[in-house]
């Protein structure tokens, strides 16, 4: 079974480096950009390992670790702390917090894997049993149209997952000559900042790659999106069929 790893860091750069480090191993990576999100993802996904940054806004790594240790379901999850500070006091503090190990930035992906292998069993990625393709939760193909379906509740974790697959999907579309994308928001129940940011990200990427985009949503969502400057110009179609016809 693939190792579930949660990387919690406010820097997308560091999360990408951690993801790349695990790329050739049998693993599934989850991301969070602060302690609050990290706790939520940990509770939902029950990872086998957490790679946790210390200095983060909203909730830092020290507080997240202390809350993690107070949760019976989560307290046994091994944690590797990342810190930019190698001073004696800092290292002593980290050791006292009960983490399995720590890494001082800067670090290379291989160095992280060396530490991980001392804590959990890490096998090579199995070609015949690829890890779950999370992109299938959101992306599907309907004829010559790529459909990006968003679920009922959009939070930062969903945004990160979609964002993580978007670039590759657009590349696939370009390579296979697909130039239309439908962003299906019909099941999204609430308009929040994660959704707005995601809509902007998708539309900008499509424009950049000369991909035609149509957006599907409910009439109430259409009204709500008009309230935001960035999404006020977007035309919302009522159904996927309407969107197809609008191309």
């Amino acid at each position, binding site marked *: 079974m693939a190792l579930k790893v949660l990387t919690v860091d406010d820097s997308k*750069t560091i999360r990408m*480096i951690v993801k790349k480090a695990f790329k050739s191993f049998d693993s599934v990576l989850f991301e969070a950009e602060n302690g609050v999100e990290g706790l939520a993802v940990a509770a939902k996904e029950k990872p086998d390992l957490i790679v946790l940054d210390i*200095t983060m806004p909203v909730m830092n790594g020290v507080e997240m670790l202390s809350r993690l240790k107070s949760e019976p379901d989560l307290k046994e999850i091994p944690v590797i702390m990342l810190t930019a*500070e*190698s*001073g004696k006091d*800092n290292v002593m503090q980290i050791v006292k917090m009960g983490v399995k190990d720590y890494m*001082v930035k*800067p670090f290379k992906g291989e160095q992280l894997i060396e530490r991980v292998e001392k804590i959990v069993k890490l096998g090579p990625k199995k070609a015949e049993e690829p890890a779950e393709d999370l992109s299938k939760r959101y992306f599907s193909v309907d004829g010559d149209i790529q459909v990006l379906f968003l679920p009922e509740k959009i939070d930062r974790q969903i945004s990160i997952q979609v964002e993580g697959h978007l670039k590759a999907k657009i590349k696939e579309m370009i390579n296979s000559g697909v130039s239309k994308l439908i962003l299906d928001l019909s099941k999204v129940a609430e308009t929040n900042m994660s959704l707005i940011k995601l809509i902007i990200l998708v539309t900008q990427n499509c424009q950049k790659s000369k991909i035609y985009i149509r957006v599907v949503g409910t009439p109430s969502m259409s009204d709500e999106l008009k309230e935001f400057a960035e999404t006020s110009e977007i035309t919302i179609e009522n159904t996927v069929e309407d969107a197809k016809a609008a191309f």
Partner: protein
Amino acid sequence: MNEINTVDLKGFVGNAVNEVFDTMLSMEVEFSDADSQTTVDGNRIVGSVSFAGELMGSVCIQVPDVFARLMTAAMLGMELEEIEGEEEVNDVIGEVSNMIGGDLKSRFCDSGLPCELSIPSITSGSDFKVESRNWSRHESFVFRHQQHFAVVEVFIK
């Protein structure tokens, strides 16, 4: 505080910058005698972190846009044309400043000058300058990687 006047800033900064560029970017850098005021001008990005405690101050790294994009590609293991936009570049420069600041903070603490580190902040543009006011020490160091330059400035009191 006498320690502030005696800490080996050049040694601390040199080690930190070399370590970060070598480990994270696989780039060799060296000190340069070039003028810090004129070496990095035009469109540039500044990543900075602050220290607060017995030692107060900040460290910032200024790099021209072109070098910042090279650094981003190197750190993320991608081609230049794969960089999606400013957000990625800003994040990388912020992380570089965080790592340099983290290393400096450790050296300061180990030298008897305990302090805490802020999260990084980013400024980009062309029509601005970083000024020094009322600091006990303000030092600028220019680093060169091939034909590219970066300026690291430290302000402490």
